[in-house]
Every structure is written in C-alpha cells, then in structure tokens.
C-alpha cells in the first residue's frame, strides 16, 4: 500500500531551539496514528507542519507522493480539530459546521444535507441553531470534529482534542472517535501525551521526545518491545535497571546473571534492562530468580502494587495476590520478560574536551578549575573523565552550569539524568526528582575529574 502522507527528514529550529530533528515518517491510508510524547517533544509542531501552519527548515512533506511543502494551509486536503476547539463564536452550530462547505460554494441544499448528516454522526441533531458558547465542553468538541470531518478531508488532524474534558467524558469520546474513524475510514493523526489514550485508540503509535522519533509501532509492540528506556518509562510502568550484556543471550543485573532472548549488543556492554511490573511473579524466596523483601504495598483496585527491595534496587511488582510488608519473597521472571535496550547515553562516564589555559588551570565549557602538579604546557588539549556521580544537581543560583534536562529515568536506586549543554550531553546520577524539559543547575566535584592529555595535542 502506498503511504498517504510522508515526512522526510523534517528539521525545524525556532529561536535557536531545535524543535524537530530529522523526523521521518510514513503513514498509510485509513490508519489511526497517534503522536505520543511528553510536552515539548515536538508532536504538536509536527501536526502543525502537516496542517501547513508551519513550514520546516529542511525536509519534505508529501501527500500521496506529491510534495506539498509550499501548499498553503487552506489548500491542503487535511482538516484539524484544535486543542481548545477554536469554534467561531459568532456562528451557531450549523454555520460552524457549514463553514468549509460554504467556502467550497456548494449548493444550499447540499450543504444542509451534509451538515445534518454530520451532526447526526456526532450525535448533535437538534442543536443546529444553538450558539456554540451555550454548549458543554463535550458538545463543543463534537462540533469541532463535525466541522472538520464534514469537508471529507483525506487526513483528519486532532491536537489533544480530549485534553479539556473530564475522565468519564474522555473515555466516551475515545470510543466515539474510534467508531467514527472505523466508519469513515479517514486517516486520523492524533496528538496526545496520554499513553493510555494512545494504546487504546491507535493502529500505530509514534513515540517522540525532544523533537526526535523514539519508536514507531503497533501499540502491542511498543508496550512489549520498547526500544529504549525512555519509551519503556513513558509507556506503562516499568522497572528499569543498569545492566551489562555479558554476551549474546546473557545479561547481568541486580547481582545476578540471567538468560535472555536478545543478542547483537557485543560482550560486556552496558545496557538498560526493562521488566514490566505485571510480568514479575512473587514466589517463595527459594523458588525465585532473586530474593527480596516487600517494603510497601498499595491496593490499586484490580491488583496490589508492591515495592520489593532486592540487592539495593527497588522493584515494582503488580499482583492480585498480596504479600505483606516485611515478608521475604522470591522474584520470578522468564527470559521472555527481560527486555534489553540500548542505553540512552552511550557509556558509563562523561568524556569532555578541555584545555590547559594557565599553569595548573584547566578550562572546559566556560568553566575552569585548578589542578596542582598538572605539569602540562598552556594550550594542551586534554580529555576530562567525569563520573556521573561527581556531578550534583543544585539550584540554578548556586550552580556551576545551567543545563537543559533531556531525560530522567528512575533506575531502581537513583535517577539517571541526561542533560544538554554547550552542544554536549552529560550523564549524571541524582536522588532528586526534577522536571524534564526544563533548565536545572549542576555543580561539579572538580577534584574527582580525571585529566588526560590528548596525544598529538597542539601547543600554543
């Protein structure tokens, strides 16, 4: 089948911020596709590029194989359901829905028929003359959907359309939208930050973070085979730990070595390992793969959520059977339950380029520190090895450096943070929780930095 929509290497920078980075994607006709990611990940921006409200700095948008980069929004065969509905306040329900058809200069009778038919589909028959500001949120939402769909777009774009509705109404509308999509067979592109919504509704999910696509796949694949720790963390609940791939089909973490189904990572390679809480079975201490102690229990309705402490790591386990706090348990899982993922950050340490700028002074980024007995000529280029543990998160006013927090993942003991500064990513460990996609302050333990002169470094 030919893709109805294709994005090729889309890149967009706004005010020095890289909003989208090399986004490529192809969408088949008739699918329900969801862009999923935390706020600021670029999902709405991608949607706006498809709608024609933004044009990318680089890359192509193609519709049925035809490049539509330069086609203005009003000529594109797509329609949008906006985040806050954006209904025309001066028009009633009928005229809101008829807006697009009137512009197409259809006959009055045809407009009337199509609008009435669409109002029936969205269950708003009898509301034609109602002013839109007299409608409830759910009703306004239906008008917005009808207003877009009545034009029979080839693709319907929905920008977090259910965000403003309460939970019950949201669930109803999700089912409603799926029904409408099945009935009309229109391609839907749906933007949300709600992973449950994405898993429920989609044929295909595109997980995004920091303007990059992390994974594309069917909901089942994304849930069962997340491609990296970010996806695993964002979709559903997960235990994510540091691990070492000893060799093909063998991984060690949490003080044990276990068979797994993954290969091709190389030998003694640092990786992330993910285990879903519902895949782990609590057994008698002797029978499990690992031994632990239950530290906390929360009843969640269908299941108990239990925290188990095991070799210094905190495991989350879901089970319908209760193991009381303090009891010794075994943690049991099969090779199939162990998901191995490439690390988000390559390696265990930070390697930063620096330079000797004065006798016994080393500079990197816009920082410098003293190091006694360095004995290197001024101008020597050096490599600095900085352990993730020797970088501390502090308030910005006390910080050596202000950095952008790209990701934060709980690794069972500490949070693994990846921050961005001076066009470099840094890895650090912290026990504090921070808001992702914001600026935070960091402080270096300069004494713990290893300085190695680069061979062949220039002098002067």
């Amino acid at each position, binding site marked *: 089948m030919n893709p109805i929509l294709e994005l090729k290497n889309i890149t967009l920078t706004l005010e020095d911020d890289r909003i989208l980075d090399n986004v490529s994607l192809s969408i088949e006709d008739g699918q329900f596709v969801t862009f999923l990611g935390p706020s600021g990940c670029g999902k709405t921006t991608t949607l706006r590029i498809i*709608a*024609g*409200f933004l044009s990318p700095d680089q890359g192509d948008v193609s519709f049925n194989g035809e490049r539509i980069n330069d086609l*203005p*929004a*009003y*000529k594109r065969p*797509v*329609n*949008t359901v*906006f*985040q*806050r509905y*954006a*209904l*025309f*306040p*001066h*028009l*009633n329900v009928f*005229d809101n829905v008829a*807006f*697009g058809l009137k*512009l*197409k200069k259809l006959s009055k009778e045809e407009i009337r028929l199509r609008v009435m038919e669409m109002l029936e589909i969205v269950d708003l028959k009898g509301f034609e*003359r109602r002013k839109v500001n007299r409608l409830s949120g759910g009703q306004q939402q239906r008008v917005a959907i009808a*207003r*877009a769909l009545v*034009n029979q777009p080839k693709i319907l774009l929905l920008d977090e359309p259910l965000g403003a509705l309460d939970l019950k109404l949201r669930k109803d509308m999700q089912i409603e939208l799926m029904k409408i999509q099945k009935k009309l067979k229109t391609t839907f592109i749906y933007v949300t930050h709600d992973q449950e919504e994405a898993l429920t509704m989609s044929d295909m999910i595109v997980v995004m973070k920091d303007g990059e696509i992390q994974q594309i796949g069917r909901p089942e694949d994304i849930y069962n085979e997340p491609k990296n720790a970010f996806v695993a963390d964002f979709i559903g609940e997960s235990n994510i730990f540091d691990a070492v791939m000893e060799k093909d089909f063998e991984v060690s973490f949490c003080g044990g070595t276990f068979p797994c189904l993954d290969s091709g990572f190389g030998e003694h390679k640092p990786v992330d390992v993910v285990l879903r809480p519902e895949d782990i079975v609590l057994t008698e201490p002797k029978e499990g793969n690992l031994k632990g102690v239950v530290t906390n229990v929360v009843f969640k309705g269908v299941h108990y959520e239990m925290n188990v402490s095991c070799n210094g790591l905190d495991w989350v386990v879901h089970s319908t059977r209760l193991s009381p706090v303090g009891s010794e348990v075994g943690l049991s899982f099969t090779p199939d339950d162990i998901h191995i993922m490439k690390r988000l950050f390559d390696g265990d340490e930070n390697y930063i380029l620096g330079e000797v700028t004065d006798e016994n002074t080393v500079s990197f980024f816009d920082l410098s520190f003293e190091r006694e007995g360095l004995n290197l000529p001024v101008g020597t280029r050096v490599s600095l090895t900085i352990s993730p543990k020797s970088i501390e998160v502090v308030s910005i006013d006390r910080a050596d450096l202000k950095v952008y927090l790209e990701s934060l993942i709980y690794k069972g003991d500490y949070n693994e943070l990846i921050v961005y500064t001076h066009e470099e990513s840094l890895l650090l460990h912290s026990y504090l929780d921070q808001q992702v996609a914001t600026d935070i302050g960091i402080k270096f333990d300069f004494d713990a930095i290893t300085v190695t002169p680069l061979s062949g470094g220039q002098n002067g």
Partner: protein
Amino acid sequence: MGRKKSPLTAFLTVPYLVWMAIFVLVPLGMVLYFGFTTAEGQFTFQNFQSVLKYGDTFFKSIRLSLVATVICLVLAFPLGYIMSRMGEAGQRTMLLLIMLPMWMSFLLRTYGWMTLLENEGLINRFLELFGIGPLSMINTEGAVVLGMVYNYLPFMVLPLHSIMIKIDKSIIEAAEDLGANGFYVLIKVLIPLSLPGIITGITMVFVPSVSTFVISRMLGGGKNVLIGDLIEQQFLGTVYNPQAGSAMAIILMVLILVIMGIINRFDSEEMEGMMV
C-alpha cells in the same frame, strides 16, 4: 459581589450624580427650552424653520465626518490587527506611540497642522526646494478631513485593538484550515468578530468629527463652515441667537442619534444574518 448596596456606597455616588445633573441635565434642559421658545419665552417651532436654510452645512458636516471615519477605519483595522498579533512589548510600544500625541493639547496639535499646511508653511517651503508648488492645502475640505483623521484616529485604533487581542490565533487558523484564504478569513471571521470594536470606533470618531468647530475653523478657513461653527457663532459670535443655536444643537443631536441607531441596528442585523 451580589451584595446589597450599603448606604455608604449610595452616598459615594452623590457627587457624581450632582455633577451630572448640573453640567449635563441642566444644560440639556436649557437647550431644549431655548430651542422651542422665542426670545420672549413663547413656545414655537420657528427656530427650527429658521435653521433649515443651513441644510447644506449640515450635509457637508456629515459628509466630511463620514469620509474621515471611513479613512480612520481603513487605517486602523490593519494597524489594530497587526498590533494584536505582536508580542507584549511590541504592543506596549505601539500603544504608547499612538497615545503620545494625545498627551498634547488638542489645540496645539491642530495649530501644528496649520503651520505645516499654510501657503507659506513648512510643507510648501520644502516642496519649493524641488521647484514644486506652492500647493494650496490649508482652507480646503481635505485639510479638515486630515485634521479629523489625525485627531481622532487613536479613538478608532484603541477599541479595535482591544477587541482584536481577544481573537484567538487558533480561530484564524481554523478558518484557514477549513479552506479560507486571506480574503475570506477577513470577511468571514476577522470583521465579524471585530464588529463591536468597529462600532465603538465609528462612534468615537464620527460623533466628535461631526460636531467639531475647532478643526474646521483652523484648517478649513471661512469656506468650510461646519455645524459646530454655526452653533458656536450663535452663542459666542456677534449674532448672539441662542434660540437658533439651540435648535441647531437639537437637530445635530437627533441626527447623531439616528445615525448611531442605524449603525447599531446594522450590527445586530449582521449578527442575525450570519446565523441563518
């Protein structure tokens, strides 16, 4: 708050009510009295008949004011829209620039235009350098309209701007998304949604323009007498005829009320018409 007015609140409105009574209601009553009586105090319609001969002046006043109002609207609409899409700092700067001339006396500003437009004025002297002119600009209808536009333009920009900043960007985008090009966005969405601002702006430009006498006197010379000038002459000039002056004032008031009524009517009909 939905609270019952306390005696204190009621008391605080007294100064304003007294002020209004003395300086609005009483003069209005006097105008009505003079308008319908003879110098001896007898009831009459004679005053109205006597001012009918000034029909041309009435017509001219309305015509020039309408032209000035339309020019203001055409200038202010895009300006107000562009301003409403600016950042906060940009909007503040623009508002300041628009308000700045209003910090100066109305008379001074109009005098300024006199020195610019005069036959020996700055503009003509500048044009002379290129061997053009002199153009006769002062004492023309154009000069009067220019004075009106210059003085009252802010009163058109401000209400338009304040209504336009309330138009969400996504509503404009929704119209584009549904197939409206720039022209249709303008007539189907922007103008209808700005209508309250347009009406306020028209009112605030047309009413002072149609009753002005300073602008027409200073920039229009003796040839461009407007109703405002006529009324002023009846009270302050050598002719001293408060009866005729009051009659003119009453006619002017009625004319303004009728015109504003028509415009407001158009407003609600427009809204009604769009709902069919």
